[in-house]
Structure formats: structure tokens, C-alpha cells
């Protein structure tokens, strides 16, 4: 019984280390091929459109509702003790959004939307021998498939987060005006008083890492896919789970170092 428990733990630890090794190895390869000419310019722009433009709707809903919920929850709580909560909401909502909520929520949402799509696409290419076909045509799959997705993700995630910061703040303003009888001037005065520009930059800095995690894990799970449709499904699920966990752990580490 004890022996089998140790065996089980040992197997899981070995599996974890092996997966971590594969992801790190692919990350190294992606960095290496990123600086090799010629660049896949067309593919990079295509991926930027997929990751950026085509995610606008989901980012809009996520950020707007987060800003509104945040204003509603904190406003209600503050109103219990202090009247005139509306005057403080601008600072609270924008600080929470820019420093933490927008980067991490966009990271998690994009892990689900983009990470899964990357894994499903590359995984399907792998099981239908398209990745082998690339190799037979003297084309490195990491350079052709992973690098454009990596560059697009690390560039588009900060942009999407800026958009989310703005929309979330506006969502908070909407609640402040309509629920707590605040004024636009009071909301932005509070924002101005509590928030600094480096709060925004620190949040955006995190999203570069989140973008890298989503793209590298997405591609790695795709390249490892085997076993037809069932394999693609399993890889896609594991891609989202691994990316999400890594985003949360990385978020803590970066937060601890940055603040």
C-alpha cells in the first residue's frame, strides 16, 4: 500500500518534470528560431489578427463586466460604513484592474480561447501528418508554426489588456454614475489620486509572460498530440489547464518581484 503510494507519487513527479522539460525545451527553440531569418511576416500578422481582432468580443465582455462587478461589490461594501463611496470607486476599480484583474483575467480567458485553438490546430496537423509534410519540405515546424504564434501572443496580449483596462474603468464609471450617484469628475479624480502609470506598465509586463505561456504551452501540446480526434481533445484540455496553472503561478512570482 505504502509502496504503491510512493510509486504513484514518483510517477506523477516524473511526469510533471518531463512535461516541464519539454515546455522549457520548446521555449528555448522558439527563442532560437525567432531570431533566424527569413521571418514568417505574413503568418505573424495572420496570427495577430486571430489573437487580437477575433478576441475583441470576449475581452470586451470580460473587462466590462469585471469593472462593473468590482465597482458594485466594493461600492456596496464601502457604503455600509462610509457614505459617498462613488468618490473612491475610480481609484479602487482602476488600481485593481490594471495591477491584477485585467492582466490575469485576460490571460486566463485567452488561455481558453487562443491556447486551445493553437493546440487543436497544431495537434490536428500532427495527427494528419501535416507537421511531417512541413519537415519533408525542409521547413522547421517550430519556426513556421510556433514562432508566429509566440510573437503574436506576446504582442497582442498587452494590447488587449490596455483595451480591457480602459473598458473595465468605464464599466466602473457606469456603475458609479448610475448606482452610487457619483460624478464623472469625482470618479476620475479618485483614479488620478490613487493610480500611477507604472501600475499599468507592471500589469502589461505580466501579460507578455502570459502570452508566451499560452503560445508555448499551446504549441507544445499540439506537437505532442497523437491518437486522432481523441488525442486532439485530450491535448487541448491539458493545454488550457497547464497554461492556466502556469499563468496563476507566474502571476504570483511576478507580483512578488514587481511590488
Amino acid at each position, binding site marked *: 500500500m505504502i509502496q504503491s503510494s510512493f510509486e504513484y507519487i514518483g510517477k506523477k513527479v516524473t511526469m510533471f518534470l518531463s512535461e516541464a522539460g519539454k515546455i522549457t525545451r520548446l521555449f528555448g527553440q522558439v527563442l532560437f528560431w525567432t531570431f533566424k531569418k527569413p521571418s514568417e511576416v505574413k503568418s505573424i500578422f495572420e496570427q495577430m489578427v486571430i489573437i487580437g481582432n477575433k478576441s475583441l468580443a470576449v475581452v470586451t465582455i470580460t473587462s466590462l463586466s469585471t469593472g462593473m462587478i468590482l465597482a458594485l461589490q466594493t461600492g456596496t461594501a464601502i457604503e455600509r460604513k462610509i457614505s459617498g463611496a462613488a468618490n473612491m470607486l475610480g481609484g479602487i476599480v482602476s488600481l485593481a484592474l490594471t495591477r491584477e484583474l485585467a492582466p490575469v483575467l485576460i490571460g486566463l480567458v485567452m488561455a481558453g480561447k487562443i491556447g486551445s485553438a493553437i493546440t487543436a*490546430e497544431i495537434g490536428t*496537423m500532427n495527427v494528419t501528418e501535416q507537421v511531417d509534410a512541413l519537415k519533408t519540405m*525542409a521547413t522547421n515546424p517550430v519556426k513556421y508554426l510556433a514562432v508566429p504564434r509566440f510573437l503574436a501572443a506576446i504582442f497582442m496580449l498587452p494590447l488587449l489588456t490596455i483595451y480591457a483596462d480602459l473598458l473595465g474603468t468605464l464599466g466602473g464609471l457606469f456603475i458609479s454614475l448610475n448606482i452610487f450617484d457619483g460624478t464623472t469628475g469625482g470618479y476620475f479624480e479618485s483614479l488620478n489620486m490613487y493610480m500611477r502609470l507604472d501600475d499599468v506598465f507592471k500589469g502589461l509586463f505580466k501579460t507578455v509572460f502570459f502570452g508566451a505561456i499560452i503560445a508555448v504551452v499551446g504549441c507544445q501540446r499540439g506537437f505532442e498530440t497523437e491518437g486522432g480526434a481523441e488525442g486532439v481533445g485530450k491535448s487541448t484540455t491539458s493545454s488550457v489547464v497547464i497554461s492556466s496553472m502556469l499563468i496563476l503561478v507566474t502571476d504570483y512570482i511576478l507580483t512578488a518581484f514587481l511590488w
Partner: protein
Amino acid sequence: MHGLSLDIPDKKTVVIIGRSGCGKSVLLKHMIGLLKPDSGKILVKGKDIAKLDDKELDEARKHFGMLFQGAALFDSLTVAENVGFALTRFTKKSPAEIRKLVKEKLALVGLENVEDKKPAELSGGMKKRVGLARAIAMDPEIMLYDEPTTGLDPIMSDIINELIVELQKKLKMTSVVVTHDMKSAYQIGDKIAMMYEGKIIEEGTPKEIQHTKNAVVKQFIKGSAKGPIQVLG
């Protein structure tokens, strides 16, 4: 595979036959360096493919063309982009010149006006032909075919077989075809090699194979359930 030895003559078509799952496709993938052997050599023009580094391997692969079992067309690209894939990446030809070459290669495999279609819009036979056009786009010296007729109706299989023979005559390539379709093997092969239990157990001209005395080969080419080949289950 263990103790396998096979010589592929220059500018001839060698057909490797054998039961499904006996390792024919694995052998083909070793020839182009997609898989590496644990031991042994794969000599292509005197160079051991298994010993080449990534850069040398990519250079060597530019002389190869490969038709995959499911055609392996890139589904995010159009037919023209698929066929012109290597031309765009490895030649300095203008888009107009590439478009013209793509049309020529598609005409060679009997296709026209499909350039702007996506692979999902094509039938199985058309996909195979586009895959063939893509494989010959760079005028390869060595052509590998992995089960070229599998999954096609008998008429389309015959068309693909004729295409392989025709391309062989026109382009003078060294071809290796992996199949378990005996009609196809007799039609296209200058030499047929039978793979069984990880080894090449017999090789010869189509006529020699048809008149073999080897019981295993006999059973396979006749497609008989009874014989020395053990069928489990």
C-alpha cells in the same frame, strides 16, 4: 525493423509491399529522416541520412518529394499555396512565375481551376493529386509514396497508378512506393520488395514476385487467409 537491407536502384520504381502495420511507412519515414534508426545506415547518394544535422537534413530533403497517405495538405492554405509552398520558400521566383508553375504541376496530375480551393473542398482523389503536385513542385530526384491508392475507389486508384508511371517516365525520378495494393504494385513497380516481420524477405521484378516459391509472399500476393502468415484475432 531489425536486420533490414534494401537497395533502391537509381531512377527506378521500387514498391515495398507487406501487411498493414508491418512497418512499411516507418521504413519510408526513415528514408527521409523523419525517424532515426537505433542502429544501421540509410545511405542516400552515399550520405547517411541518419547522421546529418538539421541543416544538412533540410538540404537533403530539398531533393525529396513525398506523397503522404492522407495527402497531408495544409488545410489553412489554398491548393495553389500548398503546391507552391516550397517554391515560395526556396526559390526567388515571382508570385506570377510561381502561379504559372503551380498551374503546370496541377495540369501534370490532371487538375485545373482548383488553385483557389481549400483542401476541405476537394474529394479524396483530388487531394491525393494535389499532394502529388506539391511533392513534384521542386522537381525532386527521389519520390516517396506512402500508400498512394489507399482509401480511393478502384477507378481513382488506377488513375493515380497511371499518374505515378507517367510522372516516372517524364521526370525520371527514383521512386519508392509503399502499398498493400498488389494491382498497384504490379502496375508501377520495376522492382517489388516484400516486408515481413521487420525484414525484406523477398525482392524481384513483378514477374519474379508473381512466380515466387516463398510461401509467405505467395499468401500475401494472393490475399489468402490461409498460410504461414499468422493472423491474430
